[in-house]
């Protein structure tokens, strides 16, 4: 393995690490989602079933969108060209070794 290959391998490992970090966030939000659903059932009285159902639907939609965002963010780790170019342009003046991994 020459120097370039080694650098590429290290870069890939870092990308996988960043992707896994997003996966950790996904798991955290999933836990929060389930926790909220359970808390709603436990805290609110049983005669408010309709409200609980509605709140669960609303929470479900919000978390579904957050999951989609995190999945998209995970894809952009491997395809940095899909990120917001305006912010990338703004950061040209202050280059970072892992600039492509930032939003």
């Amino acid at each position, binding site marked *: 393995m020459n120097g370039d290959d080694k650098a590429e391998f290290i870069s890939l490992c870092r990308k996988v690490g960043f992707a896994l970090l997003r996966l950790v966030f996904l798991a955290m939000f999933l836990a929060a989602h389930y926790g909220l659903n359970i808390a709603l059932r436990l805290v609110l009285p049983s005669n408010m079933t309709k409200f609980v159902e509605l709140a669960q639907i609303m929470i479900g939609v919000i978390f579904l*969108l957050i999951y989609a965002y995190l*999945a998209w963010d995970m894809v952009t780790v*491997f395809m940095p060209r899909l990120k917001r170019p305006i912010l*990338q342009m703004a950061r040209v003046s202050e280059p970072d070794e892992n600039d492509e991994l930032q939003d």
Partner: protein
Amino acid sequence: MNYKTEFYSIFERTLRVGATFVALSVGGCLIGLALGVSPRELGVAVAVPILWLFAISRVFVAAMPRTPSEAKPITKSATALFFSLAAMFVAGIGAIDFALSGATFSFLRLHNLSSGSYRISATCGEICASVLLVLTALALREVFGDLATALTVVILRILRWPTLLADAVPPLHKLQHHR
């Protein structure tokens, strides 16, 4: 950038985007309830247009000019032309979102997926599995780049069998010479 900084960055970004999603979802649910959508279908009815809107915005972001020289500055921003173009742009995005959401609803209804949380979670699971598959494919492409390229060339060559068959047939001008 280290993992700690990245962790805080993702957290901050997710919260910021999450706040937008909360506003959109609550607004969407209220509109849905006002329009008399049944609670069973409310989740899909609100999530699908927002997801498509998110996808459209990502496509626009990816299609934006990369370098400052490509970006054309707007000089007369307050003109009637600018506002009419902006209105047309928003209306166009709305129309695309409406069409895509309508197509998705039709698809879900056609496959009897529009009701039942089990079906919805199964669809979400399939989407997650697809994302994981794409990520795995990307990772594999990064590691086995040359091998994957060689494999793609072979597959493309196999798929080009009609052209190869056509190449085996003598060219037309040669046949004309024999007349």
